[in-house]
């Protein structure tokens, strides 16, 4: 059921830091081709970067070794996590690369995750530990302390980065406003999260921003101050907020490129490519001929389908399918056993155009297969799709076979307006 892992795949936590670079070079559990300087690639002249100081291996596979239910269409990297300013480190594998969120979240080993390091807590001006709540669209949640760590990916380091630890059973009980008085599902376990953490490398630096710094209302539920056993919703300065690690790299800090090869219509048990740091900062991260679409202040672009524009569309590697519109508009029925996916009688081809705030327009051709007919031995699919009322959510299938650049608002990319996506 689970694809076997490469015999040299490094999964043991606690390996010394000097081996971590080798760990990134070995494509664990993947079928990645040559790891030479040219790398492999998909069609359309895609070039996937080989190993380098600003590159880590990006793999789509069933997820962490202890995960029972395989993860479909998730792309993962490993990172080295250290106590700030020390060489006390551990490698954490299977961090979900998510361009739809911002900041690093790590699952504690107390709830099945990989993090064993006890990282120093972030405190507010009254020396109270800070906790954070993240809610998902179904009112489920993640809860845990905000800590700091030195986070290293290849040669890039974010020093003293505020990080969200989730599933830490030693921390305060989740506040009622986060759990909705216990009615929301707690996702603070390995099986519920599906990964050892989330690496949020989307288009802004701070996961909350100025709204959580000051104002007439405290955004709830986000940050909490925990003076004792009770945590209270709280403002938090930007420097203490959980943030996109890339923004704190000394160089190559203005965005990322996800580079995944294409797959066939039947999918693959795993695929491997590269996560590249920086846009236009090194010889391996130039925009080249990529089309640049400038995003609005919601990080959205406009997708036009059959003449109708959908201005709240977006690109998100953390979505596991192409989610767009509805049965009536697309002509595809919803699956009976999985109402979040489409089940056309046969694979259907589509074409749409994307444009941003600037004038650039691109055409995207894609296919949607019957989700219930997909090969259960595979987890990487470029044709898994489902409904999304009134918008296009270009999830991980969009990233297969094309290099996708995601820039960070407020960071400089020469001759470009940020934030943007480019491909």
């Amino acid at each position, binding site marked *: 059921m689970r694809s076997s892992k490469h015999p040299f795949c490094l999964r043991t936590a606690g390996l010394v830091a000097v081996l971590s670079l080798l760990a990134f070079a070995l494509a664990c559990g993947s079928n990645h081709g040559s790891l030479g300087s040219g790398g492999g690639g998909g069609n359309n002249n895609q070039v996937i970067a080989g190993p380098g100081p600003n590159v880590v291996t990006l793999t789509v596979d069933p997820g962490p070794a202890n995960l029972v*239910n395989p993860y*479909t*269409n*998730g792309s993962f990297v490993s990172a080295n996590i250290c106590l700030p300013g020390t060489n006390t480190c551990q490698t954490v594998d299977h961090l979900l690369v998510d361009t*739809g*969120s*911002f900041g690093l979240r790590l699952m504690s080993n107390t709830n099945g995750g990989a993090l064993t390091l006890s990282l120093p807590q972030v405190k507010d001006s009254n020396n109270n530990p800070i906790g954070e709540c*993240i*809610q*998902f*669209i*179904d*009112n*489920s949640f993640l809860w845990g302390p905000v800590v700091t760590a030195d986070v290293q990916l290849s040669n890039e380091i974010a020093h003293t980065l505020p990080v969200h630890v989730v599933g830490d059973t030693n921390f305060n009980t989740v506040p009622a*406003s986060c759990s*909705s*008085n216990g*009615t*929301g*599902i707690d*996702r603070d376990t390995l*099986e*519920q999260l*599906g990964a050892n953490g989330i690496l*949020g490398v*989307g288009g*802004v630096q701070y*996961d*909350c*921003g100025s*709204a959580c710094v000051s104002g007439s*209302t*405290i*955004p*709830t*539920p*986000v940050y909490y101050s925990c003076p004792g056993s009770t945590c209270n919703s709280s403002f938090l300065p930007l420097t203490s907020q959980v943030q996109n690690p890339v923004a704190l790299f000394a160089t190559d800090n203005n965005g990322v490129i996800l580079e995944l090869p294409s797959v066939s219509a039947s999918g693959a048990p795993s695929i491997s490519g590269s996560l590249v740091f920086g846009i236009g900062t090194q010889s391996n991260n130039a925009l080249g001929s990529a089309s640049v679409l400038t995003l609005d202040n*919601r*990080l*959205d672009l406009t997708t036009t389908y059959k003449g109708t524009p959908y201005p*709240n569309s*977006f690109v*998100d590697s*953390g*979505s*596991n*399918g192409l*989610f767009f519109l*509805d*049965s009536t508009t697309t002509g595809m029925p*919803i699956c009976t056993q999985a*109402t*979040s996916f489409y089940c056309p009688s046969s694979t259907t081809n589509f074409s749409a155009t994307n444009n941003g705030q600037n004038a650039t327009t691109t055409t995207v051709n894609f296919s949607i297969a019957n989700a219930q007919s997909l090969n259960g031995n595979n987890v990487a699919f470029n044709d898994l799709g*489902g*409904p*999304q*009322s009134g*918008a296009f*959510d270009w*999830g991980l299938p969009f990233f297969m076979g094309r290099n996708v650049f995601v820039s960070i608002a407020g960071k400089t990319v020469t001759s470009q307006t940020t934030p943007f996506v480019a491909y």
Partner: protein
Amino acid sequence: MNWISRTRPFRLLLTLSLLALALPAAASLGGDATSVQSDASQMKAQLRVTQKQSYAVHEIQTESGATVREYVSPSGKVFGVSWQGPVLPDMRQVLGAYYSRLTNASPNRRPQGPITINEPGLVLQSSGHMRVYTGKAYIPQMLPEGVRPDAIQ
């Protein structure tokens, strides 16, 4: 409170600041618009009511930072709701008896894409990404005559 005189027959805009008033301003999906005087203090910061020809829209800016719209029929029933914002509103209050349909939509793992329910008794969509949550829900049988689902935004 001052009511703006009705000069246009099909649209009347009332702007009310209701921090102190326990005005029946909002309710859960499927409930009575007048049934939540007890909830008024929990969710409300500001209320704006827009009167359309066949229904009213109650827009609430919650204390937590979200915006909720409730679509109310002439008989005072909430037939549709929508929400958006950098955080979710109190979904128990917004969805009422339909709340468990949202929380049970993805029991085994966190949602990895939008949630869609499309049934005769309930249409619900919840989607978004960090900092931008959006969703809507309505009860098809409760739509007032002549009101289409796309009126709920």
